[in-house]
């Protein structure tokens, strides 16, 4: 197998607090192959968004990377200069966020914002940048793009804004797209369209995609592989089919069972008692142990290692 496009090793991210560093991402490992679509699934506080912001080196002033390595296409991103990161962001790795409203500058036209991205990364003339911007907007399904260049974000619907952001993301033909809950703020019918668009771009452009979501069902529609995170750790990592039909970590299994579906029997949903662990109050062992119906003594004391078993990895003392 060739080297992965992105390789994350033992990544730790913490917040500076009054009592020192509080770790929110506590040593995660996974890689993404060229052209692969990987879903990261987890609840709030699982560290899924924070770890990807760390990959992009976009952490705010209070958070910092406290350990590990992030290797993209052979280059250690954590050792790269800020100038080098600015080259990589948007050109090699692009990111799309949850709220398309706040990701766009309300005072600039859509066209100007897409053209700016193109010109930041490619030595092209204004008219060529304009042509590329139109091409990117048309590629994401924004019709009459040459006329729409003049439109401002408020003139677009939520779904159209998210399409415009995806156009900005793909305008420079990146090799990796990180989409952080890109459909959570959208209506369900629009959500389905955006998911289809990302699947289509992946197929046509050979993009690798990291799709962050809290929704396992949604992720399963487009990803090859699912990484499940809980309490700042990777707890299970397997193919979409394995996670859907034969998940082995009790958390993954419960996460699936507690989501209501349009098929199947009615009756009470499987509930996970309690709440996800809070930052700075991580249990010493497996972070899921306090809520896990399968937990035994060792679970509360010691974090299980992430063990490879055939095509999947799992961190659990009592996998099912």
């Amino acid at each position, binding site marked *: 197998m060739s080297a992965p496009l992105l390789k994350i090793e033992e990544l730790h991210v913490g917040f500076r607090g009054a009592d020192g560093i509080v770790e929110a991402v506590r040593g995660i490992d996974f890689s993404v192959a060229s052209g692969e679509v990987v879903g990261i699934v987890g609840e709030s506080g699982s560290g899924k968004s924070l770890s990807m912001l760390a990959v992009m080196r976009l952490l705010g002033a209070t958070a910092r990377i406290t350990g590990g390595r992030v290797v993209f296409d052979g280059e250690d991103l954590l050792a790269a200069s800020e100038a080098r990161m600015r080259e990589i962001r948007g050109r090699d790795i692009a990111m799309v966020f949850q709220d398309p409203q706040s990701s766009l500058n309300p005072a600039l036209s859509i066209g100007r914002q897409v053209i700016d991205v193109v010109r930041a990364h490619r030595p092209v003339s204004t008219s060529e940048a304009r042509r590329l911007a139109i091409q990117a907007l048309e590629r994401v399904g924004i019709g009459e793009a040459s006329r729409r260049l003049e439109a401002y974000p408020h003139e677009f619907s*939520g779904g159209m804004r998210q399409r415009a952001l995806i156009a900005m993301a793909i305008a420079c033909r990146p090799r990796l797209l990180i989409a952080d809950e890109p459909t959570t703020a959208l209506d369900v*019918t629009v959500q389905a369209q955006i998911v289809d668009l990302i699947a289509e771009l992946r197929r046509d452009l050979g993009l690798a995609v990291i799709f962050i979501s809290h929704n396992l069902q949604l992720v399963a529609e487009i990803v090859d592989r699912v990484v499940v995170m809980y309490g700042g750790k990777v707890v299970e990592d397997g193919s979409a089919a394995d996670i859907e039909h034969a998940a082995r970590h009790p958390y993954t299994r419960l996460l699936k069972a507690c*989501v*209501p579906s349009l098929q199947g029997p009615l009756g009470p949903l499987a509930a996970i008692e309690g709440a996800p662990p809070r930052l700075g109050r991580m249990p010493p062992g497996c972070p899921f142990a306090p809520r896990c119906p399968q937990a035994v003594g060792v679970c509360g004391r010691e974090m299980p290692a992430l063990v490879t078993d055939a095509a999947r990895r799992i961190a659990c003392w009592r996998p099912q």
Partner: protein
Amino acid sequence: MSGPILALRGVTKAYAQGSLLDRLVGGASRFVALDDVTLEIARGDVIGIVGESGSGKSTLASLAVGLTRPTAGEILLDGEPLAALMRDHAGSWRRRIQMVFQDSSSALNPRKTIARCLAQTLALRGVPRATQEDDTIALLALVGLGAETAPRLPHELSGGQRQRVGLARALAMKPDILIADEPVSSLDVSLQAQVINLLSRLTRELGLTLLFISHDLAVVRTLCSRIIVMRKGRIVEEGPCLDVLARPTHPYTQLLISSVPKGIVGRRAPAAVASATSSVG
């Protein structure tokens, strides 16, 4: 009384759009948030109102609790016009219809303990001070929270626990009808399941009439016996929940159902969605 506990008759809510100048010269347009909606809710009904943004579902909720007034039409609470109740009874009718909001952190006063918040609500209903503490503990137990929650502040609780407190506060008024506007959509899935199960148990045990507003068809299927599908201020389809979801007749309902993520089996050709969208537009 055996009539509907809540009825809407030809209710329309419109807002003026455009600048002040437009309005003065008569050039303003109207945005119709709710368009001639007629609806009856029987005592004990658990109704899901489904729609996307702009469907009018939240407008319907705020009209029903009297937060806004209709432009046209009439709302009847247990047979009495809401407009007259709002004039005559100085708010005593408000006890009978309570609301739970989407964002539990902004719906609770961050500086009041849970005990104080609930005790003040009980006082509004005239519960004497001597029994307020016991009633508070009983309310917390009803929504699955222990007495240790009482002295806490909202920020010390998880989102799921806060939403339970919001529910306890609404139930403190012993309402005839409870309106919940997207009460689980800002919760993590594991907490969402807890609150759905709780609402389901409460509607059964208390015989509560519930108007559950949601964009999530699967949640509505789990909880509700009747479903109302809204689009652009109008009801496009209604009926028994399982029937409508199994055999939707309106193309918009069909589109909503096909848009629900279904996991691996839900992988579909992009063209299918594109054509479904254009057939509705």
